């Protein structure tokens, strides 16, 4: 188990290296020059040259890459030109916000989708299965920005159940914060709900057809015992793991939702940084977004490993 974890961590470190390289070199394609950004257009060519040298822009690109990477690892992420504040503070604050939003979204999404999917799977072909499957599939295809607007109008304007603003006052208690985040998390939940429910459903059906369920039946177990001890135990780990793998997709959805609900999260920051060509912010934010997805992927693997003795105990 420990070896598995170490292997995964080594792989992640390697992937992060490649990821950082990719981000860095992609960003090199962006128009604009840092020296000009800092000095303004009135400086002399000598001043530019001096500034370029000071910034290391005269170095070959790979030297700059490692310098940048070193700085990044030391926590020196540069200064955001557009927000005029240190990138690290900016990105970490936004990252915290996104984590909160994603947390609420996942907390709603995973249990509800899995319960729905398992229910559908256990009642394959019955009306409850049809409602869940068709409903889930329908929700999945509504883009976040459409469902978001409708949710806003219905729940915030007409019913006034939830506030429009996703950001709670800073002194708000836990539940108030959550209340602010429910509305923006729902569109993301909708889009992934169908997918995860479908996974849980087919996982359940697959397990129901497995020979060991027959074995359990022949033992004389009650239906309840069969479902709890044998079906769920084997159907859930892959489903949970798969739902964590939705992280990348959810991240994308968060960009849209944060824009729609004007929530100051990482996604919104990414969008703003990319439209305003704020290079250091963009680099840090993309890298951080990549790290989140990677961690989720690792979590997915770990979940599977912890819950599945075939991985946990080895052969």
């Amino acid at each position, binding site marked *: 188990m420990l070896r598995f974890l170490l292997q995964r961590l080594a792989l992640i470190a390697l992937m992060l290296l490649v990821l950082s390289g990719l981000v860095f070199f*992609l960003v090199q394609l962006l128009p604009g020059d840092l020296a000009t950004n800092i000095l303004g257009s009135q400086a002399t060519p000598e001043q530019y040259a001096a500034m370029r040298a000071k910034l290391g822009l005269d170095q070959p690109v790979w030297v700059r890459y490692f310098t940048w990477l070193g700085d990044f690892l030391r926590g020196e992420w540069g200064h955001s030109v557009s927000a005029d504040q240190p990138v690290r503070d900016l990105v970490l604050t936004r990252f915290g916000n996104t984590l909160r939003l994603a947390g609420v979204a996942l907390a709603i999404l995973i249990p509800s989708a899995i319960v729905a999917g398992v229910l559908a799977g256990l009642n394959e072909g019955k009306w409850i299965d049809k409602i869940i499957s068709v409903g889930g599939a329908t929700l999945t295809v509504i883009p976040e920005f459409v469902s978001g607007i409708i949710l806003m109008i219905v729940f915030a304007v007409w019913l006034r159940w939830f506030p429009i603003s996703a950001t709670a006052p800073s002194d708000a208690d836990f539940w108030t914060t959550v209340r602010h985040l429910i509305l923006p998390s729902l569109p993301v939940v909708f889009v992934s709900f169908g997918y995860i429910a479908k996974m849980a459903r087919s996982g359940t059906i697959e397990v129901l057809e497995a020979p060991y369920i027959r074995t359990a039946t022949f033992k004389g177990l009650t239906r309840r015992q069969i479902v709890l001890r044998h079906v769920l135990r084997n159907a859930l780990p892959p489903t949970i793991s798969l739902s964590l793998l939705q992280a990348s997709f959810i991240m994308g959805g968060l960009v*849209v939702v944060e824009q729609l609900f004007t929530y100051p999260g990482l996604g919104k920051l990414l969008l703003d940084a990319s439209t305003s060509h704020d290079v250091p912010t963009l680099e840090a934010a993309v890298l951080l977004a*990549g790290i989140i997805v990677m961690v989720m992927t690792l979590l997915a693997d770990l979940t599977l490993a912890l819950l599945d003795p075939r991985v946990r105990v080895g052969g």
Partner: protein
Amino acid sequence: MQENTMSLTQTPAEKLRAERRQQRAFLLRQLFGNPGFLLGAVIILFWCLVAIGWHLIVPYDPFATGITMPLGAPSLEHWMGGDDLGRDVWSRVLAGTADVLSIAPLATVITISVGTLIGVCAAYFGGAIDNLLMRSVDILLVFPPIIIALMIISAIGASQVTMIIIIGFFGAPAVSRTIRAAAMREANRDYVAAAVMRRENNGYILLREILPNIEGPVAVETTIRFGYAIFAAASLSFLGVSLQPPAADWGLTITVQRIYIQVQPWSTLGPALALASLVVAVNLVADRLRKVLATP
């Protein structure tokens, strides 16, 4: 050469053809006998026809402002009403099809070709090549596609071609995983070993031996990715980094018009429903295809 000599014997060849016809007919019965698939196919066909011939069927110039009352309510003449600039919403929904259905299919073609190529190569060559390809795919999968799209667009600017390429390439890793799994099953089958034992070249084995047998997963992935491509294109339009006004693209229209949703819901709901109908249709087709074609 082989084909020539074989065509000398008409009867077996004809039989084979007849049999293929039968097989195809059976497959089509399997597909079109399903109401969901039928509905999906009809909707997709409808939008495809609209995309090609919207010029001929739009009741009004979709780009002419002041055709109707700004944000006018639906009426007999303008049955989805007017948008903020007094353009006919229904005409714009129809015209928007062209944008949606030019980006998504081409992006899907890229996604599927690249993904299949990577998947099949990884599965067949195995070892270091497989490792290299799949680890690269892992890394690419870590990037949320929208975020990368944002980065690239801010680097090279948005255009229809950029959209197609970005959406196309970023779907490929996910496809390559599925295809690899399918191709792996095939590559481990003995007929591939038999081909190796005839010293067939890699191209022949990949294209003639393996590829035809993963048509099912490829077809299924195509429909799934098509749905994703539509979704992705709409999301990028929404974020304002894709097409520009006055394009009638659905995602863009929703972005622009959503502010009026309380006043004139149709200018938002029209394209939203169109988008949803297309994605639902693609999903219906994908689901049925998966059931019929999936390799057991």
